[in-house]
């Protein structure tokens, strides 16, 4: 038997997680692993067959064919990740009625001028979207608080309906919902319009993070979510929870907040270290602290599921899908090369076009470098060689620290975060927040998946619906 290339990591339960470049994986116990390293086979014949089927080992007669299969799987994976399948983001305004502690994109005051999209640009933006990609289109309206310019959102929808055709697109409005009213609900009712909102916990925590002069962000959100559920249905609203220090001690607050609002699915993530998001010492915490929090949250969610309350934590589902579902690559953060530009084209309020939300954040922080692909009237995906450099330096397969990592085939690359924190795109993975977060998520979730069958069944449901 001949051993084929693989990487490994030790899980908390004592199992050893193996993966290869094709994305196949297996879990061995310590004695099986020792045998495998020593003699390219274990004493368990069934396990040997499994390892052979997953291209961790080959008999000498089939070595050429096995090598070819591994190569073909890796080539297919790389080409899949290089596909241009963007979400289109449009920023109608940078103005916002909130003044949140950790706003990731900076903001402009709600009454400021010069921070809104020129209505004349909308037709060009939509025609550009049509030229860039075949349907179906996902158009995400970002901010600021986009509902401040509902007129522009309606104009974007109308242009999309006219140029892209109904049924070929959906519009997701990322909003605090503070300005939601009955007229917006009524407008959205028979249109392909969805809402994505931030929910940071129950009233006290949410209002401490999401700062409105009236101090009633949570109450407004609660009312709006209730109305969306009543009028439009549960599939029209999704939440994102950004974990701040005040939430670290109260993971149950996130669950209670979702249950209170009647939402069963949550997406929980650590605070972004980008730009404006983590500049205040009170919001800082380590990924180790986050994982302690996350474990408590996860255990409580699993307990609720076992008691018949079907809660889903989507960041867990996404990490596991990357491992368990071949070809799953719909999450831009977990892509190598990076999903920059390949998975996102952002049309900013000032007509500039960016390859991701993160690049527009970097532009606000590092003003003397042009992170854009030009303006919508003169868009060029190749003119700014920054993108070529960033994408070509984002293949984690060859990154120091990643090349020997068992989670490399499933993980991604975030050149913008590394530029933001370290001044260069590859990053020292031993200090990288991106690496610490995703590696610990994979390690934790796979450990639970393989060491606890009742949890595995719940996680399978999350992954496979």
């Amino acid at each position, binding site marked *: 038997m*001949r*051993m*084929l*290339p*693989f*990487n*490994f990591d*030790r899980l908390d339960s004592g199992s050893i997680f193996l993966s290869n*470049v094709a994305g196949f994986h297996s879990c061995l116990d310590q004695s099986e692993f020792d045998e495998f*390293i020593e003699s*390219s086979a274990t004493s368990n014949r069934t396990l040997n067959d499994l390892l052979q089927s997953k291209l961790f080992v080959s008999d000498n007669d089939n*070595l050429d064919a096995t*090598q*070819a299969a*591994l*190569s*073909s799987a*890796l*080539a297919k994976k*790389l*080409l899949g990740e290089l596909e241009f399948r963007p979400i289109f983001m449009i920023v109608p305004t940078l103005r916002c009625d909130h003044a949140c502690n950790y706003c990731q994109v900076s903001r402009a005051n709600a009454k400021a001028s010069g921070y809104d999209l020129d209505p004349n640009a909308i037709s060009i933006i939509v025609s550009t979207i049509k030229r860039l990609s075949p349907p179906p289109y996902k158009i995400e309206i970002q901010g600021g608080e986009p509902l401040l310019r509902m007129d522009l959102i309606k104009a974007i929808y109308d242009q999309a309906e006219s140029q892209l055709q109904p049924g070929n697109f959906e519009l997701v409005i990322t909003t605090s919902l503070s300005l939601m009213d009955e007229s917006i609900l009524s407008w959205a009712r028979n249109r392909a319009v969805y809402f994505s909102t931030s929910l940071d916990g129950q009233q006290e925590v949410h209002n401490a993070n999401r700062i409105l002069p009236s101090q009633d962000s949570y109450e407004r959100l609660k009312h709006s979510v209730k109305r969306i559920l009543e009028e439009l249905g549960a599939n029209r609203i999704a939440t994102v929870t950004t974990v701040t220090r005040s939430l670290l001690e109260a993971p149950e607050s996130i669950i209670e907040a979702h249950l209170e609002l009647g939402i069963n699915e949550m997406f929980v993530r650590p605070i972004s270290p980008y730009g404006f998001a983590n500049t205040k010492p009170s919001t800082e915490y380590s990924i180790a602290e986050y994982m302690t929090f996350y474990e408590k949250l996860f255990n409580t969610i699993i307990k609720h599921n076992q008691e018949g309350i079907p809660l889903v934590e989507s960041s867990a589902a996404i990490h596991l899908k990357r491992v368990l579902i071949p070809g799953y690559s719909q999450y831009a953060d977990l892509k190598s090369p990076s999903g920059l530009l390949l998975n996102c084209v952002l049309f900013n309020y000032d007509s500039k076009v960016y390859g991701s939300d993160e690049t527009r954040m970097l532009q606000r922080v590092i003003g003397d470098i042009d992170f854009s692909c030009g303006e919508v009237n003169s868009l060029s995906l190749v003119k700014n060689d920054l993108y070529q450099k960033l994408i070509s330096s984002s293949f984690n397969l060859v990154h*120091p*620290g990643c090349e*020997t990592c068992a989670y490399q085939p499933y993980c991604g690359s975030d050149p913008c975060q590394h530029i933001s924190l370290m001044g260069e795109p590859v990053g*020292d*993975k*031993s*200090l990288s927040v991106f690496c610490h977060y995703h590696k610990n998520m994979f390690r934790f979730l796979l450990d639970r998946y393989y060491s606890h069958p009742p949890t595995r069944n719940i996680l399978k449901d999350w992954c496979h619906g």
Partner: protein
Amino acid sequence: MEIRELQKSDYTEWVIRNTLYWLTPYSRWQLSDSSTHWIIQFESPSNDLFYELDKLLNDYTLRENVMEKTSTIREAITLNVLKSIQQRLEA
């Protein structure tokens, strides 16, 4: 400050450098060598640091073992992947 000396006959430079790469969050370190030893100077020694050091030395030695056994296959795979991608791009 604490100095660890590891025999060159026990660990290659690849194992030492990959191990040290992941120790930066625990302590600043400096690597030098003599004809027989790797000499590592740690600025902030701790039990956690040395636990991690031993674990990483062990695991990178195993990884080196796997890499040695699979190096020719690894190179062949890389070549095949490049050929395959080229073919698909030309198709």
